[in-house]
């Protein structure tokens, strides 16, 4: 059974690790979100000179494992003397920056494709209708196009955030002490499984539940019009149905 003595001894380390995991996730997801909005517009563009460079970027990143990308940035780049003597070296020297860069590049590629798909799926009629009632170009973008695309992308975006949270475990390979690294140290030092990887799994699972529930709230807010129960009256919905 679980040795609670070890759990209470190592819990402070796990909480430090949790903080690092959350920080890594927040920094890469927020940078990825900001970058992928303009990139997704470019990706959905009709102009091949704009579309193809973005497509190549997402294709390469989505076609290679994140761990390989992380190793290329962390171990590969410092092999070049020119990089070690350049102005970016002080930041590239830090394992933190390397992990953040790899995670951001990765999540940006996936999110860009997701958003571009949502943009392409915008019905032409929706835009035509908005123009027909006299909305200007900017108003159409702000009030019709973006809210629609965001709603369509939201359920998939939740998956991306959860997957990215799990992917932060890869940072343990470049000396960053996040949840998995703490678990591996506990495993090595105490030689126990439930109290090391078991606890790590519990942390990841709890984070997943919190993230998906947060997104469920967001979806309930933004996707109300798709919920069949939202269209019936509150009283009718509360009435239990007996077959």
């Amino acid at each position, binding site marked *: 059974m679980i040795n609670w003595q070890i759990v209470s001894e190592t819990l402070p380390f796990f909480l430090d690790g949790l903080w690092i995991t959350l920080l890594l996730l927040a920094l890469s997801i927020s940078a990825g979100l900001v970058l992928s909005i303009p990139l997704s517009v470019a990706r959905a563009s009709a102009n091949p000179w704009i579309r193809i460079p973005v497509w190549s970027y997402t294709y390469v990143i989505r076609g290679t494992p994140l761990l390989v990308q992380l190793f290329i940035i962390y171990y590969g780049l410092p*092999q070049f003397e020119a990089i*070690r003597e350049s102005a970016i070296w002080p930041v590239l020297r830090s*394992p933190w920056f390397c992990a953040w860069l790899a995670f951001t590049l990765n999540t940006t590629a996936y999110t860009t494709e997701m958003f571009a798909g949502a943009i392409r799926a915008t019905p032409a009629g929706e835009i035509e209708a908005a123009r027909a009632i006299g909305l200007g170009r900017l108003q159409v973008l702000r009030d019709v196009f973006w809210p629609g695309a965001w709603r369509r992308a939201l359920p998939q975006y939740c998956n991306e955030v959860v997957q990215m949270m799990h992917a932060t475990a890869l940072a343990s*390979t470049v*000396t960053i002490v996040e949840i998995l690294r703490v678990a591996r*140290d506990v495993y*090595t030092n105490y030689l126990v499984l439930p109290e090391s990887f078991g606890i790590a799994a519990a942390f990841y699972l709890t984070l997943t539940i919190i993230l998906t529930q947060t997104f469920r709230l967001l979806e309930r807010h933004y996707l109300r019009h798709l919920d069949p129960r939202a269209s019936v009256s509150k009283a009718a919905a509360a009435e239990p149905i007996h077959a």
Partner: protein
Amino acid sequence: MRFMTACSVMTFLLGTSVAYADTLRIGVEGNYPPFSQVAADGKLSGFDIEIAEALCAKMQVTCEMVQQEWDGMIPALNAKKFDVIVASMSITDKRKQVVDFSDPYYDVPSRFVAKDGAFAGYSPEDLKGKTIIVLRNSPRAEYIAANYPDSETLLVDKETAVYLELAAGRGDIGFGSSVVSGESFLKQPEGKGFAQVGEAIYLTDSTDGGVGIALRKGEDKLKGDINTALATVMKDGTYKSISAKYFDFNIMPKSAQP
């Protein structure tokens, strides 16, 4: 009758699987040149590997090498993924609480490695605020934590990463086995401009003399057989011819030297 046959087959199978008599599985690491390394074709070589093979020959058992990352070495031993660890594991009091060790099979000091002439001295004062790179969960990491509290540490997963990170410039000074840095890193092009610096340090506080073969607690018969084989290998010249392939100095533990 068939039941009886089944029972005797079972007894036979159980009987042979409990004894190590036919195959001894040896946990090795592969990231600790020249003691243990993996060639591009996946072949293991190194001092640890050859000593393990020599012991197997003396004990007249077939051996199977199982490669395992350093982190999970002792857990994997206790989970019976293999029967002994021959992976340059220092004998420490902490480890002796969970595994047994054979007699030491070699003993080498630890050394700092840095850019030649980068530091005036190597006392805790001199290295204050500097980043020391060291293998995590190792006696050397404990030594640094205890003696260099005012220095930063970069704790890496494998011994080779100490020098990889040092060459990449992610730390100011590395601390590792004098043999690993001397034989693998400093003789490579990446090691140009670096040197072993400061005194040779024997971690006498935390070890009782060198590197041993780890086995699960209570396997006294196996431990006895290994110690006998080790003593033979050290006496009959096998040890000397193996170590001459890798080192131009004596790495035999002082206790075993004639």
